[in-house]
């Protein structure tokens, strides 16, 4: 009699329901990335501005009327704008290989031969980026606001600035979604994660350079909509009720960002196929 049967046995366990199948992909992506020490170091580094601002909040409560420590909506907007640098780095580290590496080793055939749809796959991959990009933006942004309320002796700050919670959520979501979708689209274009990272960086830098050139020629900031970063900043000013930094209308920035995000989503969906048809 064998001690342990190593032969094939039938399985009759319970199945999970389909609507959460994308979460399996997200969970696995998060697990793989959190095993990388460099990535964890980058995440920790991205939280340093949050710590600094938490100290600033605390100090502002102790020492009142310091001119350089004004705690208002701009304080939170500046924090999120500052975090875009880390968001950019994390997007490249976590996102460049998300689809590119799967394309490189033909993993899409494995994924799509299982009972998951292309949408499940894309949402699962998007979930990985949304999770990691929310860590330096949405999560510390909301925590900062919570600390700002808690450090006060009364509720006057909250009564004056309660709408900032929605602004933080909106601006963070816009940053996270636009970075995530663009990164996924770029990652789906190539089998090389390095190439995807370079193209993603090029999209940001090139649009900024283009804006600089156009501004120099036309001597106006109304062409700011050509730059991805400027559009985010412009919408950020609008959400935090700040005066706009550039001359271009806010609706145009929103439209450009929606077009870029929509185009990126369409591109990813089109590129994610179980069968590559060579015509």
């Amino acid at each position, binding site marked *: 009699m064998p001690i342990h049967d190593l032969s094939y046995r039938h399985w009759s366990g319970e199945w999970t329901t389909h609507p959460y199948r994308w979460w399996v992909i997200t969970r696995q992506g998060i697990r793989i990335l959190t095993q990388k020490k460099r990535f964890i170091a980058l995440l920790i580094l991205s939280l340093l501005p949050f710590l600094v601002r938490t100290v600033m909040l605390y100090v502002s409560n102790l020492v009142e009327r310091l001119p350089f420590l004004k705690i208002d909506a701009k304080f939170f907007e500046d924090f999120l704008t500052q975090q875009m640098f880390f968001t950019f780095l994390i997007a490249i580290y976590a996102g460049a290989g998300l689809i590119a590496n799967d394309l490189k080793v033909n993993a899409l*055939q494995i994924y799509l031969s299982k009972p998951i749809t292309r949408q499940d796959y894309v949402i699962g991959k998007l979930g990985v980026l949304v999770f990691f990009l929310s860590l330096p933006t949405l999560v510390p942004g909301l925590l900062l606001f919570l600390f700002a309320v808690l450090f006060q002796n009364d509720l006057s700050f909250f009564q004056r600035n309660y709408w900032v919670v929605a602004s933080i959520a909106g601006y963070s979501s816009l940053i996270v979604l636009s970075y995530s979708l663009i990164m996924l689209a770029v990652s789906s274009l190539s089998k090389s994660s390095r190439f995807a990272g370079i193209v993603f960086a090029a999209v940001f830098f090139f649009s900024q350079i283009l804006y600089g050139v156009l501004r120099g020629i036309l001597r106006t900031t109304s062409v700011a909509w050509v730059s991805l970063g400027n559009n985010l900043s412009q919408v950020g000013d609008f959400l935090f009720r700040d005066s706009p930094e550039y001359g271009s209308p806010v609706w145009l920035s929103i439209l450009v960002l929606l077009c870029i995000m929509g185009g990126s989503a369409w591109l990813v969906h089109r590129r994610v196929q179980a069968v590559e*048809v060579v015509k």
Partner: protein
Amino acid sequence: MVIDLENITVEFGKHKALDGVSMQFSGGSMGLLGPNGAGKSTLLKALLGFINPHAGGGKVLGFDIRGQQLAIRQRVGYMPENDCHIPGMNAVSFVSYAGQLTGMKPKDAMQRAHEILFYVGLGEARYRNVETYSTGMKQRIKLAQALVHDPELVFLDEPTNGLDPKGRIEMLELIRDISNAKGIHVILSSHLLPDVEWVCGEVMVIHKGRRLTSGRIEDLKRDARAVFECRIKGDVDTFREQLSLLGCQCQDGQDGLIRVFMVDGLASRCLLQVARDHNIQIRHLVPLKQSLEDVFLQVIGES
């Protein structure tokens, strides 16, 4: 009926990859035979719902291939032809992940992954990163991920590609065990006739996107035309020409041997008659036992 297809047509631009293919598979093991580019892999991909047929339809395990792809994939395992895996994982994580993608709970999937890896012979190497695996091991792990959720039907696309003779035999034994002893239906796509003959009870021959023949291998062999192997001394061209006029097919073999596929109802006596009429000596004449290769060559030749 495990698979029931009617007039499936798949087009890539102007090229018809599948041209009105019908297929009935009642269970057991079936080989999809055909030369490279015949449409075998395309047929499997259409069955899985990767490709939407331009015409025709059908059912796999009772589910419609056009509208119920997810239900089909829940019950089917697929071993792709290409080298493929999910990057950054060891074997046990990979197979467990494949199980979770199918809908198994993480704990169940992990337990099952260990069992399956032992079954396919990767038990000792299950904590190694898949990227470090040899070709043979990669074939085995592709089989493992196809079996992890205990499918009712598995599609195996060229499972012995790149394997050494020993590995090939081990893989074929595994497939035969899955089909014969474990009650899992198997569709084996291959251009290697001995592999199909070893494993499968039924076969379907596809060529240029069309189904040429199908049925039980034994029946096909029995129904196939008689084949003779002969060596002659004399004018070979005349001999071949005269046999062609009678409807026979001739193929050159090794060492001057000619393989003659007879027409139904034509006896070996006709060969002798042709030789005598044209002053040709027959030095060697042996009736050949029909192999799947003969059946394959016949139907491909006729097409």
